[in-house]
């Protein structure tokens, strides 16, 4: 999402009340702004049942023949998936651990909600980029960001523009 920069996070906090989004940088700057989830802002997860939008990055290790290299790769791998590292890293990053068997009680409210949702396969939702083309995703983002930044735009206009964007790019 091109709009999720540190700059627009500050903009959100300044000019609109905070929305909690599952977004790395948003979390980072929100911590910097001295606000805590559950106090100054809440956590909304998708839908009434609390679905979790899944998306992720992948680590790819090049195949090496050298035994030292293999050992280093194995060590890095176990370090990255280490429970303590996962918890500490994702507290700062503003995400949830990449494994579902960890105790998340030390994390903030948003992460606890998210981690609970991910354990239920029925609540796992694919991120938009898995479902629609980059083109459509981008066109919809344009409509959404314009609506969020234009107080004078009515909800009906927004719906009409959203539908037009789906039609044009779908």
């Amino acid at each position, binding site marked *: 999402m091109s709009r999720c920069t540190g700059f627009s996070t500050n*903009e959100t906090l300044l000019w609109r009340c905070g929305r909690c989004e599952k977004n790395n940088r948003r979390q980072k700057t929100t911590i910097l702004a001295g606000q805590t989830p559950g106090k100054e802002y809440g956590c909304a997860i998708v839908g009434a049942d609390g679905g979790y939008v899944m998306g992720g990055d992948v680590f790819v290790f090049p195949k090496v023949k050298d035994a030292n290299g293999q050992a280093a790769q194995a060590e890095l791998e176990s370090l990255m998936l280490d429970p303590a590292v996962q918890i500490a890293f994702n507290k700062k990053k503003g995400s949830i651990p990449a494994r579902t068997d960890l105790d998340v009680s030390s994390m903030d409210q948003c992460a606890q909600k998210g981690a609970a949702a991910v354990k239920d396969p029925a609540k796992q939702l694919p991120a938009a980029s898995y479902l629609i*083309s980059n083109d459509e995703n*981008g*066109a919809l983002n344009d409509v959404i960001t314009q609506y969020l*930044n234009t107080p004078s735009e009515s909800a009906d206009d927004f719906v009409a523009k959203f539908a037009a964007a789906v039609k*044009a790019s779908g």
Partner: protein
Amino acid sequence: MSKANASSAPTGPSMRWRRKIPAAVALAPAALIVIVIYIGAMLWTVRLSFSSSKMLPVFDFVGWQQYERLSNTERFVLSTWNIALFGVLFIVACLIIGFLLAVFIDQNVRFEDAFRTIFLYPYAMSFIVTGLAWQWFLHPELGLQKAVRDWGFTSFSFGWIVQPNRVVYTLVIAAVWQASGLVMAILLAGLRGIDSELWKATRIDAIPTWRVYVSIILPMLRPMLVTASVLLAVGVAKLYDLVVAMTKGGPGLASEVPAKFIMDNFFERSNLGLGSAAASVLLVTVVALLSPWIYAEHLRPKGARK
């Protein structure tokens, strides 16, 4: 080339040809690059704008479909308005400030070299650096507004960069800060070329200095003004990195520009067709704006020139 031929005395068509060969060989790579890469890429882009290409080029034909979508895309329409406003303000402000700086330096001030370097220095920076520095400076929570408030003026407010109807002006401010030094350098060269006899003559006629600058010097600087304007106009058409570094097109879509729309569609949104259509619109606009000038400067019959 034509001049050299006219001045030499050709003994026959074959001699003339032989003399041209080295020049033709020397120019061939440049000509090849221009024809194949620039013009070829241009035609390729226009061709793609009539196709339904998404991530990879497809050579079907869908008519004006991409252009229709473009004209209905709010972001592109806003982008064109933004670039028009930015372009006019940027070029006019740069020319005025650049001219004033050049006149200031032309008064034989002390430390002239130092001033010249200071004024030209921003131009040595990339737009990314300029954009980032101005983003920090104009940021309400970090920059100017916070500093003035910390000095005790708590009601001071300067948040243009986060106001949708003001953010384009902040782009203009940053770009003018960067480019007016270049205009100064070009115009200063022109001012230095003006004969001191002219100044003596105007002094004898007791013409006020400002009047000399406005009515006599400025018309004489016309070629330099044209050069500066063309350089600035090129900067307007390709405006991209400043926006990316400073505002990312935000707040909302308030500082989007066509070049950013094109880049996003090419490389983020995998939509070659729409991006090509936007690029073609930009190309046609630039050609339409430049052609009267090219006609006036180069194609008008020689007798009609002053």
